[in-house]
């Protein structure tokens, strides 16, 4: 377990060695800040039937930033080690393959969580300034952040798989960007293709990240998406592990 923590610590630190971390952090702060500002100024113009917090997590800005960050976070995970050749000292040290795979995934997850911490401040500031809560209930906060964590885990695991397949970071980024965008649009099909059968639309609806976020940000904790995202994360990480191991035989 100690080796896992050693690996994990390096993974998290390595984000802050490279400029990528700071670029992502700044980009993300700008987009989420603009998002927050727009929602409030929009609400100042007319009454709306939802809270600031709900609006924040369901806006176009939010989703735009959301799908973009995953390729940026995950592209270097394995690809960089392959490219630099540092995979050789890494894998000749007495560490297990699963320790390496999981440390990379959780390293990315820790960075992803760090990314979201400032947004919690927004709601605190809102409450402090206006004297009113930003959400309908405390459950809405829990729901939104739980869904962020679940979606994050799934999309990061997709990114891990993309990165383990190539030693070119750009290719890894493109693969994960395409995969995540496709997954995201799969959930939109039900709104676009109105003439497909209702069974198909219902099925696609189960994959809709938009819908899941909508439910969870109202504070409704549905177990179905929880099972979906956790199991998909496990599947993706298993595939990553398999691809990582098969590398030895393809050398």
């Amino acid at each position: 377990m100690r080796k896992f923590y050693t690996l994990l610590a390096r993974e998290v630190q390595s984000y802050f060695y490279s400029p990528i971390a700071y670029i992502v952090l700044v980009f993300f702060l700008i987009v989420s800040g603009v998002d927050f500002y727009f929602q409030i100024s929009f609400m100042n113009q007319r009454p709306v039937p939802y809270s600031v917090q709900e609006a924040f997590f369901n806006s176009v800005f939010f989703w735009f930033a959301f799908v973009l960050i995953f390729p940026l976070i995950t592209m270097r995970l394995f690809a960089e080690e392959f490219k630099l050749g540092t995979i050789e000292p890494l894998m000749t040290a007495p560490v297990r393959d699963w320790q390496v795979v999981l440390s990379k995934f959780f390293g990315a997850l820790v960075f992803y969580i760090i990314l979201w911490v400032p947004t919690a401040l927004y709601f605190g500031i809102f409450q402090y300034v206006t004297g009113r809560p930003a959400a309908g209930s405390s459950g809405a906060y829990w729901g939104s952040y739980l869904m962020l964590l679940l979606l994050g885990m799934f999309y990061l695991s997709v990114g891990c798989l993309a990165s383990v397949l190539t030693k070119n970071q750009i290719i890894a980024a493109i693969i994960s960007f395409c995969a995540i965008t496709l997954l995201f649009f799969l959930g939109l099909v039900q709104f676009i293709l109105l003439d497909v059968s209702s069974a198909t639309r219902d099925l696609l609806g189960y994959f809709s990240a938009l819908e899941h976020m909508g439910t969870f940000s109202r504070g409704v904790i549905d177990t179905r998406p929880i099972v979906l995202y956790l199991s998909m994360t496990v599947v993706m990480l298993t595939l990553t592990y398999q691809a990582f191991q098969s590398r030895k035989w393809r050398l």
Partner: protein
Amino acid sequence: MIKVENLTKRYAGQPAIRDLNFEVGKGEIMGFLGPNGAGKTTTMRILAGFMPATSGRALIAGFDIFEQSLQARTRLGYMPEHVPLYNDMRVTEYLDYRAALKGVPHRRIAERVGDVKELCGLRDVEKKIIGALSKGYRQRVGLADALLHEPDLLILDEPTIGLDPNQIRQVRELIKNLGRQHTILLSTHILPEVEMTCSRVIIIHKGRIEACDTPENLLSQLRQVGGVVLEAKVGKDNGADELRKISAVRDVTTDVDGEWNVFSLRVESGADVREEVFRLAAARRWTVRELTQRRATLEDVFVEITHADEMERSSI
């Protein structure tokens, strides 16, 4: 310490190494020689547990490198070719990380990292970012990393490649000193280095072991080694014909340097013909300015072994 049995590795059907069998005993410094593409790096990567062999097996300190990989890997220190390192970390930081990864107990990390920095001369650059280091220092960081967990066995792939002559001497000294406590397998194509440091040598060519012996034995087995160089004024004599009359001389090549003739004599192994050459020169009244025996080097062995098949082919 190392035991290799019928080790074979194919890349997409193409054999890179075929049926390697050798053993390295405790405390030996084994040199691994061969032209580029002979399979040195492949063999070392397999022994270090980086990739599996297609068939055959390798034991490190009694542990199968594939079946009991973790136990085997804790007992060896490996320095890969070109020394890949995390360029964005600082030297001490990197060594601390590697020590923890290799299972050095927490309270001993500072001590071990300090020791290897001292040993490899990294004190001056300990706070520098690895990406800013020169090639020589990177090499030393790689070596320090391999030594961190006090492994019984060191596998060093081209430890002196890309270094300047001073650095090569330093690294060679370091390896010699390490050889007192560790078993070392090192690959190189700098031959004088092997003669100076290694107790035994394996010559690998086209994926096969062509020779495995001490440097001295390899030299004595050479079919035609060295010879004698004679620089003389021979007047009207045909020097080469006269010299060929000496029984141990196999071949004479002639060169001219101004009014001096330079004869290179190839002689049968073990024979010393200098005395006979002197008598001949004295009898024929040649003026001699040089008579030296050229000592055979490992380079001759290497060239003979790795070029043997090409020479045979060209003679047909």
